[in-house]
């Protein structure tokens, strides 16, 4: 784990107000794994005071990429960073996705900005695995397909792709999913993750999800990011340290 002030190389604007920031950080790029995250200090002032967690979106050589949209003060400042300015990164943090288990097809299920960790995931997945990506959004401008492969799209209002939730779309494609051994990798809004959990259990699919939580430290000392564990009722798991990627069966969503 490192704390490094890394220079911004470029900020790329995708459609729909989504930004991807490219940062030079050899220390982190050489260590980080898909699904891990960084805790980013966007300003040296006390406004905002705390770091902001972002999943690693992609890695290219010594560069790492983070994907975000402008929500509040932190992301606003991040969006204004120009080439040469630095951001202060702490990471790599947490446990990423387990790409190497026994499955043939990785089924990516991403809702909105939940697409963030998958470009790097797609790069790092072993060559012998297939990928199929289900991408959902409320309307077409919430659909993010950056860096994904073999994409099926759903929107609640039908403005792009299949009309319905991404779960509906999965159900529509159950036949494909039932060919060979699959594993679901999902990230997105909590409501979606809940539905994914139900779907996975019902269909007996392996499933890992990346979840979010309010965080202060990001590395296990503040106890600020509890998530109820299914195996141990006496103790919360910590999203930052035990996650952010969990076997969906291990946590209460």
């Amino acid at each position, binding site marked *: *784990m490192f*704390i490094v002030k890394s220079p911004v190389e470029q900020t790329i604007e995708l459609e729909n107000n989504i930004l991807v920031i490219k940062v030079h950080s050899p220390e982190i790029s050489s260590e980080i794994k898909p699904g891990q995250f960084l805790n980013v*200090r966007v300003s040296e002032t*006390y*406004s*905002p*005071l*705390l*770091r902001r967690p972002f999943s690693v979106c992609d890695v290219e050589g010594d560069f790492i990429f983070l994907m975000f949209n402008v929500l509040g003060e932190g992301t606003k400042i991040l969006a204004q960073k120009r080439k040469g300015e630095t951001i202060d990164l*702490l990471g790599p943090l947490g446990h990423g996705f387990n790409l190497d288990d026994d499955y043939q097809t990785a089924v990516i299920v991403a809702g909105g900005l939940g697409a963030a960790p998958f470009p790097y995931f797609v790069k790092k997945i072993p060559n012998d695995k297939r990928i199929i990506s289900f991408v959902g959004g409320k309307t077409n401008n919430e659909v993010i397909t950056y860096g994904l492969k073999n994409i099926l799209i759903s929107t609640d209002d039908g403005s792009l792709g299949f009309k319905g939730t991404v779960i509906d779309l999965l159900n529509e494609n159950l036949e494909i999913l039932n060919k060979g051994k699959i594993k679901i990798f999902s990230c997105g809004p909590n409501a979606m993750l809940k539905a994914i959990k139900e779907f996975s259990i019902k269909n007996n699919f392996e499933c890992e999800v990346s979840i979010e*939580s*309010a*965080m*202060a*430290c*990001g*590395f*296990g*000392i*503040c*106890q*600020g*990011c*509890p*998530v*109820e564990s299914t195996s141990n009722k*006496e*103790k*919360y798991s910590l999203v930052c*340290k035990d996650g952010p990627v969990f076997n969906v069966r291990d946590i209460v969503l």
Partner: protein
Amino acid sequence: MSKIDLSVTIGSLKLRNPVLLASGTVGYGNEMSEFIDLNKIGGIVTKSLSLKPRKGNPPQRIVETPAGMLNAIGLANVGVEVFLIEKIPFLKNYDVPLICNIAASSIEEYVECTKILTCEDTIKAFEINVSCPNVKEGGLQFGNDIHAVGKITEKVKACTNKPVIIKLSPNVSYISEFAKVVKEEGGDAVSAINTLVGTSFNIFTKRPKLHNVTGGLSGPAIKPVALAKVLEIKRLVDIPIIGIGGIMNWKDVVEFMIAGSSAIQIGTANFINPNSADEIIKDLENYCTSYSIEKISELTGSYKI
């Protein structure tokens, strides 16, 4: 350049420098050791320990506020037994004074925890948390009850030879009255301050952002309040003070020492830069060199009013 003496004493406790890591912001040291050389810092204060493990409050436990944060962790901790078995061995690898922070919901529980922990050599002192704003078990809020604070001091002192530091609540009218009772009952020092009670609402759901409704405010926002509490105690009671509240850099440390602190603790800053303490110690040494301060302890209570 002559060697600067950064050492300070708190009662009979001698520390190589005045920079401690505050309870609840360093865990039990292991995660922090990835970022900071624990052998360099003045001391570590453990997360509050209770007799039995505590699960803590459900999420949400943390909210950011202007220049501060609210927490309502609810004293999630492994309990004294697991602490001794699983956490102490790691800390034995380091040459850093360990101060064990204890939280309890009855006077008996404080006593029992102290008795169990006092046998462990690695523990150099106790910090008694009578002031956590985020648990109200048994309806007791010791921090606001001067008799309870006196009683706890007396009873805990009776079962250990190690220095006993009482961590005071700022959520009272006159913190110095509490410090006075601590002194009268034989306490060796006070830590000031724990967090200020605060809250925050989600304006769309109308629910408190914290599951516990209220939480404890920490960070730079509270620094002026913490300094005023330290000064109040220093002016009225002759007891060593460990200053806490919003310390982010060496200048803040010097300010707390001038106001009356013998040592200080870094809390929220550890989340933002887990290496803060190390940087601060280096900066303090440079400051002492530049201003020809031979012993940093001279700063304690050096205010000119």
